Every structure is written in structure tokens, then in C-alpha cells.
């Protein structure tokens, strides 16, 4: 068991080494086999671990002493419990499918770049596994930084394009801001608890009173880290730009796994958050605000990947809402279902982009239904899932969160409902503009339209099945007693929090009414969206008024540019041209010039006349002789 635990992250790491070091010589097919194969092995091992955990054989597995300073002990050890084993399955399972998909999607790349791509992906999987398996905050932080690095590398994968490198830098820098919060929280925890091991921190925190300043501060700083990694207000703007990376990367990193790291971290430290109600309020409000804001932006985007990106931000907002109201299981459930359907949506979008020859503007698509039958069906299923139509997976998870929000405060529910209606609207706008109506692209593009190869449709089919049935893992008690398998499975992780929170139980009748309202409204919005956009015609009319604001993403990027980027650039310019060029360079060059000048003068002393040298020597000797007479 212990060996398997350590092999799970190590195998993708070896894959990374083979592909990374063998980059110049490795062939395309072997790079793909090494890349996908290592994740597949990891997945199989994860399944074994999962079964073990299910039978109650989880625990902490010690590797070696990592840091040991005075009383502070940080071992390098992995924790395999219900939460981490669930994430292991998501990461390696979806990771494997996306590796297979990538093998076909990236076929145009040169062999060296192809191997580089798989090396990055494997390194990402390794870091992500480290993140979820670590048994203390330091290991988690290492993984946390690792996934940030891989995200940077993969967004800037086509680094010859300047915009893409800028997007990569933006993602990395925004993540760094969050990471600073995370790091400060770690230091504070060391000061407060003297340890960073999950088990000890949580047991020590559990005996503390609720709502202390230290706990609130620590949790707020951790949450700052989460807003960076999981793209929440105010640090969400990197995620839409991160779509510069290859589409499978968007699916794996920027939809299914990495961006859920923040949710994992908060779910993992649920004890701390339950004891800090102030932070919980902040988390819920920020999550909800992000969900609404991103959903409104998604309504007006025309880039197929941008719509999905904002949708991801919005769904992550829901997960944070769930965490904020204490519905931890619901959030983790949504992470899982979201990983299925959002990965599917991105891969479907990748398939569409692939078919349309790198066309990403949905205004130039349409009518793809008959050309891409498999992509169409799977995409439709994913749309139904994210919109929350029963019995697709999104319905169960999103409603679990919304019901949790209602138990907390009805306002959160109603605002959240508006967001989910917008979700339904923009997803079906996307669907209708892409797959329905007539093709609006060029004739050449129409001629080339084709269904993607099997390596790409195979992951789509698997993910479509998961998106459809995945929700039955967490059927609410409303429909069947004791059917919520996920809640029972995860209950040990959230045990302490459950006892500290006052139990909320909605009467079943209220729940039925709420669900009924939700479903009816969602169906109405879907119908509206399809009716409005099924026969979309390209127009040259500029958006006006509110639509323009939405199309320009509330001008948040411009705002950040004006208040942060530009002043920073000005400051850098000042340092560069004033302080550096005339200040520091002046001093350094001045010293050089002085030495040059004086040596040119002193050189004249060297006349070559031996007599002159001797005279100087005698004069100097006399000089020192006289001096020592006086200085006694």
C-alpha cells in the first residue's frame, strides 16, 4: 500500500523526465505513449488506493524527514483519505483521457515540441497529485506552486506568439499574488500551532474557540491564495486569458483540475473555516459575486473558449458559495461533476476548433450538427449537465449547493438562481450558434469540416457518459433515502465541521418547490436561448449600452491596467531610465572612467630610464625614512 501511494505521483514524474530529457530524440508516438501511459498507470494505482480507502485502509504514509528545525517537524508524507482519493481519481482519470485526446489534437506539432507538451502535462499531473496527496500544508504548497508553473508553461506553450506569453505571464503573476497570501497563512499557522501537519493543525484548531482573530486571519489569507488559483474576484482575470494555451490544456488545467485546487484546499481545512464564520461569509459573498459577474460576461462573448472560460469562473464561484455556506460535500460534488462536463465542453470545443481549422469565433460557425455528430451529441449532453437539467450530473451538484445556500440565507439562493439561469442561457446560446442553423464560415472551411479522429471522440464519449450519470453518486435525500453515497463516503473528512455547525434541515416541501421553480425557469431560458440564436445571422451592428459593457467584460481588465499595470510600468520606466541609466550606471561608469584617466596619467611615469626608476626609489626610501623619524 505504502509503495503504491508513492508510485502514484512518481510515475507521471518519470514520464516527465523521459519526455523532457529525451525531447530531441523521442518520436511522436513514443512521446504520446509515455505521456498517456504514465498517467494511465497512475490512474490504475489510484483506483486501487480508492478501493483501499473505501474499505477503511487510508491514512498517512511517511516518506522521509523533509524539514526539521527545532520544534518544527515537516515530514514528506502523503495522506490518502476519502477526499484525496476522490481527487486522485478525478485528476488521473480525466488527465488520462485528456492525454489521449492531446495525442491526436497536437498532431501538427514538431516532434520536439510534441514531447515538450507531454513533458509539461506529466509534470502538471505530478504537481497536482503532490498538491492533493500532501499530508501537510508545505507539500500542498509545493504542488500548488508546481501546478502554477505548469500552467504558465502550458499557457505560453506557443511562446513565439507575444500575446500568448503575455497571457502566461499574467496568469503566473496573478497566481503569485494569491500564493503570497497562502505563504503568509503558513507562517501564521506555524506561529499559532507550531506545526503544519493537517491532522495536528485541525485537532489543535478544533479545541480553539470560534471566531478568533488568528483563525479569521489565517483563513482569509488562505482564501486569498484560493482566489488566485481558482480565479475568483479580484484575481480572476487571468483565467479567460489562459485560453491562449492549447485546448486540451484548458480542459485539464483551467477547467477540471488545477482551478479546483482552491476548493480542495478549503475543503481540506474545513475545520478552520467552520471556526471562522466571518471568513465563511466572505467566501460565500465573493463566490456568489464571481459566479454572477462571470456569468454576465459570458452572455456576450463570441470566442467559444472564452465563453467556456467565464463559465468556469462562474462555476468555481458556485463551489466557493457552497464552501462559504458550509455545504462542503456539495462543493466537492460539484468539483467532480464540473470536472466531467467542463472537460467535456472544452474537449468538444477543441474538436470544433480542430474541424474549423483554428476558428474560434462562434459567429463564424453554425450548423455543425451534421458534420460533427459525435461532438454534437456529447456537447449537448454537457450543456444539459451544466445547465442543471435532471437527471444530468450538474443538476444534482448545483442544486445541492443552492439548497445549502438557501438553508443559510434565501437571498443567496435567489441570486445564485439568477446566475444559474444565465448559465443555462449562455451555454445554449453557445450550443445554438455553434451547432444549429447554417454554417457561416468560408467555403473553404466548410469543405474541410470533418469529425475528429477516434482518439479525440473516445474521451468525449467517456466524459459524456460520466457527465450524464455522475450525478447519481450524490442523489439528495429528497428523492431517495440514504442514496447520497458521496456524502456518506466523505463524511469522515467533514465530521468535525458537522458537529460544530448548527444543523439546517429544510422541510421537503420547500425543497420540492425550489427545485421545481429552478427546473422550470432553466427550461424556459434554454428554450429562449435556442429560439433566439438558432438562426443567428452575422450583423455588423456594434453592441450598445449594457451589452457593450458586458462584451468588454465590465472593463475590469482596463481598470486593472489603469490602476496597477500602467503605474507599475511607469515606475519600472523610472527605475530603468532614471535610476539605472543615470544613477547606477553613472557611478559604475564614473569609477571606470576615473581609473582609466588616472592610469593614463600615471603611465607617463614609466619612462624606461633605469636611472629615473632608481631615483624614484631612493626618493621614496628617503621619504619614508623621514616620515618614520617624525612618527615615533
Amino acid at each position: 500500500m505504502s509503495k503504491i501511494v508513492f508510485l502514484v505521483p512518481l510515475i507521471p514524474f518519470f514520464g516527465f523526465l523521459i519526455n523532457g530529457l529525451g525531447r530531441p530524440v523521442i518520436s511522436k508516438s513514443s512521446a504520446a505513449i509515455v505521456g498517456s501511459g504514465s498517467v494511465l498507470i497512475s490512474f490504475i494505482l489510484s483506483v486501487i488506493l480508492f478501493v483501499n480507502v473505501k474499505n477503511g485502509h487510508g491514512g498517512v504514509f511517511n516518506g522521509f524527514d523533509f524539514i526539521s528545525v527545532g520544534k518544527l517537524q515537516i515530514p514528506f508524507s502523503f495522506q490518502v483519505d476519502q477526499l484525496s482519493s476522490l481527487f486522485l481519481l478525478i485528476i488521473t482519470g480525466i488527465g488520462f483521457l485528456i492525454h489521449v485526446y492531446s495525442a491526436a489534437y497536437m498532431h501538427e506539432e514538431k516532434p520536439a515540441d510534441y514531447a515538450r507538451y507531454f513533458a509539461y502535462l506529466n509534470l502538471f499531473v505530478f504537481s497536482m497529485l503532490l498538491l492533493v496527496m500532501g499530508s501537510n500544508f508545505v507539500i500542498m504548497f509545493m504542488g500548488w506552486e508546481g501546478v502554477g508553473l505548469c500552467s504558465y508553461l502550458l499557457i505560453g506553450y506557443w511562446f513565439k506568439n507575444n500575446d500568448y506569453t503575455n497571457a502566461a505571464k499574467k496568469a503566473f503573476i496573478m497566481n503569485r499574488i494569491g500564493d503570497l497570501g497562502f505563504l503568509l497563512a503558513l507562517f501564521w499557522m506555524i506561529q499559532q500551532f507550531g506545526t503544519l501537519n493537517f491532522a495536528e493543525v485541525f485537532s489543535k484548531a478544533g479545541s480553539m474557540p470560534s471566531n478568533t482573530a488568528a483563525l479569521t486571519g489565517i483563513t482569509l489569507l488562505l482564501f486569498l491564495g484560493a482566489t488566485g488559483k481558482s480565479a475568483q474576484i479580484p484575481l480572476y482575470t487571468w483565467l479567460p486569458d489562459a485560453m491562449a494555451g492549447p485546448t486540451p490544456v484548458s480542459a485539464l488545467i483551467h477547467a477540471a483540475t488545477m482551478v479546483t485546487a482552491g476548493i480542495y484546499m478549503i475543503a481540506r481545512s474545513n475545520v478552520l473555516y467552520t471556526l471562522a464564520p466571518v471568513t465563511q461569509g466572505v467566501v460565500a459573498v465573493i463566490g456568489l459575486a464571481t459566479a454572477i459577474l462571470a456569468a454576465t460576461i459570458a452572455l456576450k462573448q463570441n470566442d467559444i473558449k472564452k465563453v467556456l472560460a467565464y463559465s468556469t469562473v462562474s462555476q468555481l464561484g458556485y463551489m466557493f458559495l457552497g464552501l462559504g455556506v458550509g455545504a462542503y460535500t456539495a462543493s466537492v460534488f460539484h468539483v467532480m461533476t464540473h470536472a466531467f462536463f467542463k472537460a467535456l465542453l472544452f474537449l468538444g470545443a477543441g474538436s470544433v476548433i480542430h474541424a474549423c481549422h483554428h476558428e474560434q469565433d462562434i459567429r463564424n460557425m453554425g450548423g455543425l450538427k451534421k458534420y460533427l455528430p459525435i461532438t454534437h451529441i456529447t456537447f449537448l449532453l454537457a450543456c444539459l449537465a451544466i445547465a442543471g437539467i435532471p437527471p444530468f450530473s450538474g443538476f444534482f451538484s448545483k442544486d445541492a449547493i443552492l439548497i445549502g445556500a438557501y438553508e443559510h440565507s434565501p437571498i443567496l439562493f435567489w441570486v445564485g438562481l439568477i446566475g444559474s439561469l444565465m448559465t443555462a442561457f449562455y451555454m445554449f446560446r453557445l450550443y445554438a450558434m455553434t451547432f444549429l442553423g447554417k454554417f457561416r464560415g468560408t467555403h473553404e472551411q466548410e469543405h474541410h469540416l470533418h469529425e475528429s479522429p477516434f482518439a479525440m471522440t473516445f474521451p468525449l464519449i467517456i466524459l459524456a457518459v460520466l457527465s450524464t450519470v455522475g450525478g447519481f453518486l450524490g442523489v439528495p435525500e429528497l428523492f431517495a433515502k440514504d442514496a447520497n453515497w458521496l456524502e456518506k463516503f466523505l463524511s469522515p473528512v467533514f465530521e468535525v465541521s458537522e458537529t460544530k455547525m448548527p444543523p439546517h434541515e429544510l422541510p421537503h416541501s420547500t425543497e420540492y418547490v425550489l427545485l421545481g421553480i429552478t427546473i422550470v425557469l432553466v427550461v424556459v431560458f434554454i428554450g429562449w436561448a435556442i429560439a433566439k440564436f438558432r438562426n443567428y445571422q452575422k450583423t455588423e451592428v456594434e453592441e450598445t449600452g449594457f451589452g457593450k459593457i458586458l462584451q468588454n467584460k465590465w472593463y475590469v481588465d482596463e481598470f486593472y491596467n489603469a490602476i496597477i499595470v500602467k503605474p507599475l510600468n511607469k515606475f519600472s520606466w523610472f527605475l530603468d531610465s532614471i535610476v539605472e541609466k543615470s544613477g547606477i550606471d553613472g557611478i559604475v561608469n564614473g569609477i571606470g572612467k576615473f581609473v582609466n584617466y588616472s592610469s593614463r596619467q600615471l603611465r607617463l611615469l614609466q619612462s624606461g630610464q633605469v636611472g629615473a626608476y632608481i631615483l624614484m626609489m631612493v626618493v621614496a626610501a628617503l621619504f619614508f625614512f623621514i616620515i618614520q623619524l617624525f612618527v615615533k
Partner: protein
Amino acid sequence: MSINNYIFLASALFSIGVIGVLTRRNAIIIFMCVELMLNAVNLLLVAFSKMHYLTASVIDHTTKAGTDGQIFVFFIMVVAAAEVSVGLAIIVMMYRNIHSVDVNFLNRLKH
């Protein structure tokens, strides 16, 4: 004899040496002047060590004070001899190269 006489003699010898080195152009004579300076120092060393011994032997007639000064002179003579051999060799090479022992022709160190 007073120590002052020795000091005057040695100073005179040393000054002659210095002036010789500074003013003469013949390398061999410069070399001899250097020897003169060395021997001025030797003379002074011997004189001082003798004076030192005389003062010390008044108190204790078995004293060995001042012997190190005498020995030091031998060292200087040995080193000077070695130096002479090297120096003369240099002068011979110099003569072979520029057919002169005039140091003013030796200004090619400049470049």
C-alpha cells in the same frame, strides 16, 4: 672609539653608493655601488653588535649578546655573493644583446 665614527663612515659609504647608482651609467659601476651600500650596512651591523656586546659584558662576562649581528653579516655576504653572480650574468647577457653596458640603452621595458 666612539660609535659615532663608525656611523659616519657607514653613512658616507652608503651615500657614495647611492649617488654612484644614481649618477653613473655604466652597469658594472652601478653594481659596484650597490655592493658598496651593502658593505656600509655590514659595517654598521658589526659595529653595533660589538658595542652591544661591550655594554652587556660589563654585567655578565659570559654573555653572547651581539653574536647574532655578526652572523647576520655573514648571511648578507653570502646573499650578496649570490646576487653578484646573478647580476654579472645579467650584465653579460645585456652586453651580448646591446653591445654596451650603458643602462640608458636599457629603456625597452617601457613597452
